[in-house]
């Protein structure tokens, strides 16, 4: 048990507020320590402290000690630390050059290459040489992540901080990330895992610290914490999501929305093909699939945001114009879309409630005052009350904004509501409350069709029907229970198996 890094009594204060207060972390070689907690609880701040990085102007007290100062860092968005103007291999080569500086000139090149390749293979990028010649944006998210990991390994870091490595990733990718981190730990490197994905934490962590509002409320070995959480907050965080599939399918009338022979393209390449797809009134359709399988594209075709497609989208049997611009107000109101990134979908300069109210004004012709009252009602119905909604979006948290976005769409009284991954990137507690809101919505608007895009099988379980996309092809569809319990397509099989595996591993 060699302690390779230690944080003691860390307190970080910005603008008079302690964002991290009295945190102690000990990282041991070869072991994985996880920090869990709600969004904004101070996980990233703690992790960055190990790198000696603090928010600008922060007052820091406490002690941070690492063995040799070399700490690898795999941020949540690895793209951010990859230089967009340089090829992927640039930093790796530079690091290797520094290391081989002492060698005779003739041997340097070969030695540097050797080291880079070794680090790539450790990071499970065996065919890395071709990747090195690409630019970061030409790599997938998973490859970017492994590349950054390879950099950390090449430096010879004894500690690696991995910040939210699985957020927004599908189950298969998640599994690969888990494997990678396990491999890293096996090489004797201490890993600090910052995550709110409890499956991943459960599968990997040896030690878990639970944070809340900058404090560690509970810590201990993973097993103990999982089986006997002491702090109520930990219990709340770890509570398993409701397994209910929502209200019974109330499909009475015919389909509200139908898709026929849809082929969507991005600049010439076909990224989605869907021959038939239909959503009944009051039905709930889950669209699942790996990252990049075309889920968002499908949703955007329905919403009229993606014009580059053939085939028809029919609303009550009438084809919808391809482009949003050509749709009538009634048509706009009928199909509403909730964006994946709620913050980006709001105008940062105007109060949230005003923006929500505009839906009623523009799409239903409600007078501004009435619309505002309706908007406040709708927001309150989603648990958003008080001052914050009267201010700009930056004063709301991600989860709150997600609900406001939902309210904005709902105010149009749509026949079809499309929600694109509205729960990813949220901690379990927030996520649960949002799913509850959706379930309540379905109860109050029984005629509304709902489309949930997700790669989270737990969320998919809420739906009455499931559509599985793979590589832009619609590979399987049917009632939820059927598809998830008896998957036929190999991809669906692997998807359900992987989820099961992660859960199983966590149970070990």
């Amino acid at each position, binding site marked *: 048990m060699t302690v390779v890094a230690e944080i003691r009594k860390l307190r970080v204060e910005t603008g008079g507020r302690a964002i991290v207060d009295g945190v102690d972390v000990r990282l041991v070689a070869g072991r994985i320590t996880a920090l869990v907690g709600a969004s904004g609880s101070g996980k990233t701040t703690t992790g960055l402290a190990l790198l000696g990085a603090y928010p600008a102007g922060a007052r820091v007290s406490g002690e941070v000690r690492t063995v040799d100062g070399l700490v690898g860092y795999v941020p949540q968005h690895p793209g951010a630390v990859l230089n967009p103007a340089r090829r992927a291999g640039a930093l790796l080569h530079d690091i290797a050059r520094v290391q081989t500086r002492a060698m005779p000139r003739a041997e340097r090149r070969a030695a540097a290459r050797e080291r880079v390749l070794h680090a790539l293979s450790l990071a499970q990028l065996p065919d890395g040489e071709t990747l090195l010649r690409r630019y970061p944006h030409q790599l997938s998210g998973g490859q970017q992540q492994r590349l950054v990991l390879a950099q950390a390994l090449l430096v010879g870091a004894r500690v690696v901080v991995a910040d939210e490595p699985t957020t927004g990733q599908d189950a298969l990718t998640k599994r690969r990330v888990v494997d990678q981190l396990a491999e890293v730990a096996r090489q004797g490197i201490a890993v600090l895992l910052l995550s709110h994905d409890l499956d991943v934490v459960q599968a990997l962590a040896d030690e878990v610290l639970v944070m809340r509002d900058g404090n560690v409320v509970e810590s201990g070995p993973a097993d103990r914490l999982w089986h006997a959480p002491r702090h109520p907050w930990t219990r709340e965080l770890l509570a398993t999501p409701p397994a209910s599939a929502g209200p019974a399918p109330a499909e009475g009338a015919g389909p509200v929305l139908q898709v026929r022979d849809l082929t969507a393209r991005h600049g010439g390449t076909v990224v989605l093909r869907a021959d038939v797809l239909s959503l009944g009134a009051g039905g709930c359709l889950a669209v699942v699939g790996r990252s990049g399988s075309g889920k968002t594209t499908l949703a955007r075709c329905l919403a009229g945001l993606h014009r580059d497609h053939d085939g028809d989208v029919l609303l009550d049997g009438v084809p919808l114009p391809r482009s949003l611009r050509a749709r009538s107000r009634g048509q*706009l109101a009928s199909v*509403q879309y909730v964006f994946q990134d709620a913050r*980006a*979908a709001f*105008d940062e300069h105007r109060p949230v409630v005003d923006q929500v109210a505009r839906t009623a004004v*523009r*799409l239903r012709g409600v007078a501004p005052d009435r619309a505002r009252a309706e908007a406040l009602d709708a927001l309150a119905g989603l648990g958003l009350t008080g001052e914050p909604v009267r201010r700009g979006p930056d004063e709301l948290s991600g989860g709150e904004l997600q609900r406001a976005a939902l309210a904005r769409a709902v105010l149009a009284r749509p026949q079809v509501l499309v929600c694109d991954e509205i729960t990813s990137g949220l901690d379990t507690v927030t996520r649960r409350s949002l799913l509850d809101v959706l379930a309540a919505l379905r109860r109050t608007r029984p005629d509304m069709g709902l489309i949930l895009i997700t790669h989270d099988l737990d969320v998919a379980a809420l739906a009455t029907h499931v559509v599985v996309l793979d590589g832009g092809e619609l590979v399987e569809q049917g009632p939820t229970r059927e598809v998830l319990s008896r998957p036929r397509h190999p991809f669906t099989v692997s998807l359900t198996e992987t989820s099961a595996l992660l859960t199983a591993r966590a149970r070990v």
Partner: protein
Amino acid sequence: MRSRAALGVLVMGVPLALALLGPLFAGEPGPRAASFTLGNGHWLGTDFTGRDVGREILLGGRSVVLVALAATLLAYVVALPLGLIGALTHRTWLEELLMRPLDVLLAVPSLLMILLVASVLTPDATGLALLVALVNIPDAARIVRAAAAEAASRPAVEALRMQGETWWRMAVGYVGRSVARTLAADAGVRLTGVLYLVATAAFLGVGVAPDASDWAVMVDRNRTGLFVQPWAVVVPALLIVALTMGGNLLFDALLEKRRRV
């Protein structure tokens, strides 16, 4: 950064105040003296036609400032809708129709353009402002379009579309507002460029009346007396430099603020 902005305001304030208030204090013209002389009640000496430099300075800011500001403003008045429409439209032909002619203008050296157009039309101050604005439109429109295209591709605009918002509210209310900072920064540089163009045009014998009470014209016209009576050149030149420097300091500070956000 605040100090920088304050410095900018200060440095810009002197010429601006002189330009706007100067004419009120200028008073009646005295009799002409011999050109380029010092003393005899002329604090800053006389200029190339024997007028009092001090009075000319009081009078000469308004046109510079107005021409430069008007030209800059005008360039944006045209460039803004062009750029916004170019960025917001999904009709490629419309975008091409709007942007390609600007590319052609961009390929004409601006001084050549000014020289030619000015000698065809022999413009007055308004004409000069129009001309300088014209030369600045292509570049400004490109910048607006680039900045606006980024803003227009944000989900927020799609959300507005989803809500059936008016074009006006999207283009001006959201996209226009989002690019305002970038444009403010660009405007600082452009203002300098415009002042420079006006002054250089005067150097090449184009534009405002040759004896106009105008700082840029003064710098050029009194150049011959630089060694005999430097004030007639140095003071207006310093005022112009202060104007552009102050403007840039101010816009720099704005830019800085944006970066920090």
